């Protein structure tokens, strides 16, 4: 495998003038892809081995939901991690994290509708109308759907300014997901509150005034207290989910 791919690369270098799609990933990107896919792999292995607790459908629902939530928070962390902390590789994985969040949300949603409720629409609609956690979870999923579809470079180009407008809805989805997570708890809501707190920080760091202050603070500390002009945040050329 390795040999073949090397050959292809050298061929393209020597003979091709048109740009081939390159699939070169940085180590950080590979790391992110592996980490994001791991929960799905583990879920499938556990499901096949009958290792998903005595209530496997519920366990699979909870696991995929939680993974989706964490990945959504991770994708929302990319921008502030870049602008405020200057960790530029984060931008390269933002779209992937957003899409993985959607993937897990889709699996989560499908398990609920198809496996748990067996596509019993009447029952599902009753749940939707009676249970606020179902309602906000479904709303968040409905937001993620068009964002995932329009996450490609092509859609970004076609939609121009509207693309950014549309993808800002991810903030609303994040907030709805936190309510979903809090309301589904039986008693102890400390864990969802911690995640909601992280999300709140990530959203607050996007407010222009807060962001510029944070950048100034960081750069002044690095300069040993000396004043220096805040560096411009790295220009984002990648299509991103938010």
């Amino acid at each position, binding site marked *: 495998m390795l040999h073949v791919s090397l050959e292809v690369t050298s061929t393209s270098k020597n003979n091709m003038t048109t740009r081939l799609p390159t699939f070169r990933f940085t180590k950080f990107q590979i790391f992110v892809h592996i980490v994001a896919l791991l929960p799905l792999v583990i879920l499938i292995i556990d499901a096949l081995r009958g290792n998903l*607790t*005595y*209530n496997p*459908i*519920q366990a699979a629902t909870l696991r995929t939901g939680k993974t989706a939530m964490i990945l959504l928070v991770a994708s929302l962390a990319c921008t502030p991690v870049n602008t405020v902390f200057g960790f530029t590789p984060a931008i390269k994985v933002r779209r992937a994290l957003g899409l993985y969040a959607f993937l897990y949300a889709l699996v989560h949603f499908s398990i609920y509708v198809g*496996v*748990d*409720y*067996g596509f*019993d629409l009447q*029952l599902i609609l*009753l*749940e939707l109308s*009676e*249970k*606020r*956690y179902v309602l906000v979870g479904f709303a968040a999923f409905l937001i993620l759907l068009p964002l995932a579809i329009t996450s490609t470079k092509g859609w970004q180009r076609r939609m121009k300014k509207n693309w950014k407008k549309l993808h800002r809805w991810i903030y609303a989805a994040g907030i709805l997901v936190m309510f979903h997570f809090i*309301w*589904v708890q*039986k*008693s*102890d809501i400390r864990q969802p509150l911690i995640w909601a707190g992280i999300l709140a920080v990530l959203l607050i760091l996007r407010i222009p005034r807060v962001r510029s202050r944070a950048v100034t603070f960081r750069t002044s500390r690095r300069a040993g207290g000396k004043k220096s002009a805040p560096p411009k945040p790295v220009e984002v050329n990648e299509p991103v989910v938010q």
Partner: protein
Amino acid sequence: MIPIKSSEITPESVYHDRRKFMKGVGLAALGGLAVAACAPAVAQPTAAPAAATTGGTIAPAAPAASGAMTDELGDPVNTFEEITNFNNFYEFTTDKEKVAGMATDFPTRPWTVEIGGLVNNPAIFSIEDILSRFDQEERIYRLRCVEGWSMVIPWLGFQLSTLLELVEPKSNAKYVRFETLLDPEVMPGQRSNWFDWPYVEGLRIDEAMNPLALIATGLYGKDLLPQNGAPLRLVTPWKYGFKSIKSIVKIDLVEEQPTSLWMAAAPREYGFYANVNPEVQHPRWSQRTERRIGETKRRETLPFNGYGDEVAYLYEGMNLAAYY
């Protein structure tokens, strides 16, 4: 009075292999040949670990028919593994699959239960007293958890009414209040102050006197394991599982309606009655349907968990949506 007959105890190995057993028996069982057919299937009862039954009166017997392994609706009992490894017992942990491991060293001997309050004969029973004084019988009951899952469990125990009759409630006793052991040393979940320990539950006295209300001391013909509420617990099968308080140390007859732990924690979600009711919705879990552990498809939840004939009279004229 009770349509659920206490059945003979079935060897655990037969219980475990019941699905295989049922498959093997196949149509023959339907033809009434179950007794004959079961003999080869029960060839190796070696798996049963030290089945020391407490009362000494119960001898393992071969199942008379496949009916011995189902509830009165014909649904098979859950496996011993399911019943003893999927437990809501917040005194240990909120993780249902971790309770069993954390409760292995829970000391159930010595154990005493204090019965008092508005009674003529207050008493303190040791668990040995209880086991020798009250005949243990098997009751196969459905357990419907408020979280939307359910099981069928072959309990071993005795009617709560016989215990109450012994202590003679006074005329002003209106409710029975139960209390779980409070000992954060052995119940690490009680170190969390998220709940107002100890666990408290209550029944109206007529509910407590209903023949279905059971004090369970065992299941599958063996002593209760700590994760199931050893050494003795309440079982009220027409109510959501949380009413069936575990590891009881105190029973009081009282005049005022007791406030249970869950009523105190979330009064809008958990009421005093907590009767299984598909008409009364919960903010999180479907009460119209439930998932039987071991099954994929949801089942419709039955009013009073299917025990309406036995208990509905208790609530005549009551608005069960208001008294949930």
